[in-house]
């Protein structure tokens, strides 16, 4: 009987590892941008294209840079969360409107609400490249000195916000 239990034993061992593996994230490869100064930019304001907005305007603040686009379906998933954050005034959010058209972006914000203190246009995606964006949405947490502290790929979930990002935001705001 014992030898017939061997396959079961082997399976249980593999199962244990797979179960632990579920809690790990192989994509959580340390981003080369974390701990480095955020790339600087100066871009046209989405609502008033003549006025420019740049990273230096956020100096001394802890802020989020949220990369979004009107063609991005996943951005709709995280949008309510961003709107909530803006209402509670937890942290200023700057929207980087990535490879988008101005009229469509404005219409989208009108429909779903505008959580952004400022939204800027990165029509050709050049700034996105500087930030190493490879999918929309992506969100960067930048501290008072302009250093990237955290990067979230994909829509921010409530869980990710409360467990990972919010504690970090509080800590950075205190310092």
């Amino acid at each position, binding site marked *: 009987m014992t030898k017939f239990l061997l396959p*079961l034993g082997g*399976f249980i061992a593999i*199962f244990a590892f797979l*179960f632990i*593996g*579920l809690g790990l994230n*192989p994509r959580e490869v340390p981003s080369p941008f974390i701990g480095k100064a955020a790339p600087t930019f100066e871009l046209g304001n989405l609502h008033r294209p003549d006025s420019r907005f740049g990273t230096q305007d956020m100096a001394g603040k802890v802020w989020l840079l949220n990369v979004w686009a009107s063609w*991005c*379906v996943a951005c709709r998933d995280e949008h309510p969360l961003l709107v909530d954050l803006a209402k509670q005034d937890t942290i200023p959010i700057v929207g980087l409107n990535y490879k988008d058209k101005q009229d469509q972006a404005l219409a989208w914000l009108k429909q779903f609400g505008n959580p952004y203190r400022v939204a800027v246009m990165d029509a050709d*995606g050049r700034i996105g490249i500087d930030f190493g964006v490879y999918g929309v949405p992506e969100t960067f947490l930048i501290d008072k000195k302009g250093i990237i502290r955290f990067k979230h790929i994909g829509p921010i979930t409530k869980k990710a916000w409360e467990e990972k990002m919010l504690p970090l935001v509080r800590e950075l705001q205190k310092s």
Partner: protein
Amino acid sequence: MIPEIGQFALILALLLSIVQGVLPLAGAARGNPVWMGVARPASRGQFLFVALAFGCLAYSFVTNDFSVLNVANNSNSGLPVPYRFAATWGSHEGSMLLWVFMLTGWSAAVSIASRSLPEEMVARVLGVMGLIGTGFLLFMLLTSNPFDRLFPAAQDGRDMNPLLQDPGMVIHPPMLYMGYVGFSVAFSFAIAALLGGKLDSTWARWSRPWTTLAWCFLTIGIMLGSWWAYYELGWGGWWFWDPVENASFMPWIVGTALIHSLAVTERRGAFKSWTVLLAITAFSLSLLGTFLVRSGVLTSVHAFATDPKRGVFILIFLAIVTGGSLVLFAVRAPKVGLGGKFEIVSRESLLLGNNVLLAAACGSVLLGTLYPLFLDALQLGKISVGPPYFDSVFAPLMAPAIFLMGVGPLARWKEARIPDLAMRLRWAAVIAVVSAILVPLIAGEWTLMKSFGYLLAFWVFAASLTSIRERLLVGTQLEWSRLGQLPRGYWGMIAAHVGIGVFIIGVTTVKSYEVERDVRMDIGDTVAVGGYDLKFEGTEEVAGPNYSAARGTVVVSRNGKAVRTLHPEKRFYPVQQSTMTEAAIDSGLFGDLYVSLGEPVGDRAWSVRVYSKPFITWIWGGCVLMALGGFLALTDRRYRASLAQRSALPAHAASPS
């Protein structure tokens, strides 16, 4: 409206699958014929409802219904219609629906082609398949509903991943899933036999054709995937030992072992517990593959949407299915008995050796695939295991298996003698050794590795010929008229074995003689590769249905005479903002010329990859031969006979245990 019908059909299918999973199994346990009788109609009904759901989803995709989240995420109005249809299974949700569609298809097929089986057996087999269906339908409805709506509807969709917009990708997943899911039949037969306590040669005879069929589909599916990677990824490679590739390859290896082990169990009644274990393993590995691909525990070039919630569900399901069957195995297998006796040298022992080698090979692939996960789980750092590990472990395990493959078909059951086998195979050995030395010499530089590859391939060919020759021999005369009388099962085996040889020739030749040149080419530049001169004549902008492309023109000439014009493309898909490389391949029996555009450098110049890949088509040709061999074996007289005169079969076949 249509998506809601699909959703409703899925719910009905779930209810039917629960009925199919519970009543027939309970009926078989209590000997209640009415409950057992539920199995067949329930499985057919479940198939119809899942087919309806699949049709509804396909309809939503083809008609661009962007109020369905799944459609909005994976399709676009600019996408050509055939790809819109293929997008049905291009997403996670859709591919799960395809999985269940295949499962119910297999289960309905079993319900039709099982009239000669005892009712109890049918009830148990279909019951187990019903339970598997329940698991997957629940998975879909709870975590990955393909019919979820999106409010407000999207203006247009995010488009299908351009990598998947390819004819090969349209048929690759269905073939692969046919194979994956097909092993559920062998699994269900094994569980049914364990439940019923009757592990005899009859059970092996019934599950054999189903296993072979699933194996054929899996072979074709893997081959299409490899071929697709070759011409679509633009790197000219054909196998990357990626976790997702391994996920499909492991069930194939175990399936191959299972086919051979089933043959022994049917003929000689031996290896019963081993065969059952292989059947459980093959399907468990299919489930594990699904888990690895869908849960995101491993990173892979196949970037599918992943979600830990889904991972937990599949893992629990895997635990129930595999854990449950292994417990059942541990309880029932000790009573099975050993079956027919055999000597140390016999066809049984050779097949056993082959099985052990295949199992070890599968184990080593499993280890390499999960190793990064093990280390990460033990907090020993993040690493990735690459092709060097797999190449150095897999080839040495396969080489002896291929040697045995030549000997096995000539060995007698029960007892064979080494001197006798050596005598009969001496010419095959001579032919193999001589060819292995000559071929690399003629083709150019001789090395040991090249020779070894050719040695294995020619050994398979020569040993197969020897086997055919012996079958035709009457006394000392070759009786050619016997050629047509040999059973198709035999020809199937020969075709599959020769397919392995063809495959080895392809792999060895590509590895030894391929030429890869990455060059910068301006208009008018020429590069010489593999005896051809390739002249770059610049690129032009062309517009596709949903992309724009830079299309290059490369004139291929041999000895100053133009023989062909190739058009590699660099495509840009605006909706997904991604760039795809479409290699131009001049494919031939003796090799491919492969041209792909890299990046533009300067005004008109491009970096261009030019590869010469001799005999690469033999890699896929070999796989096709293997699959054809399987199909041929399925048309063997004994299966046709059992179809034609089911009632004439003896109710109880002798089991030599």
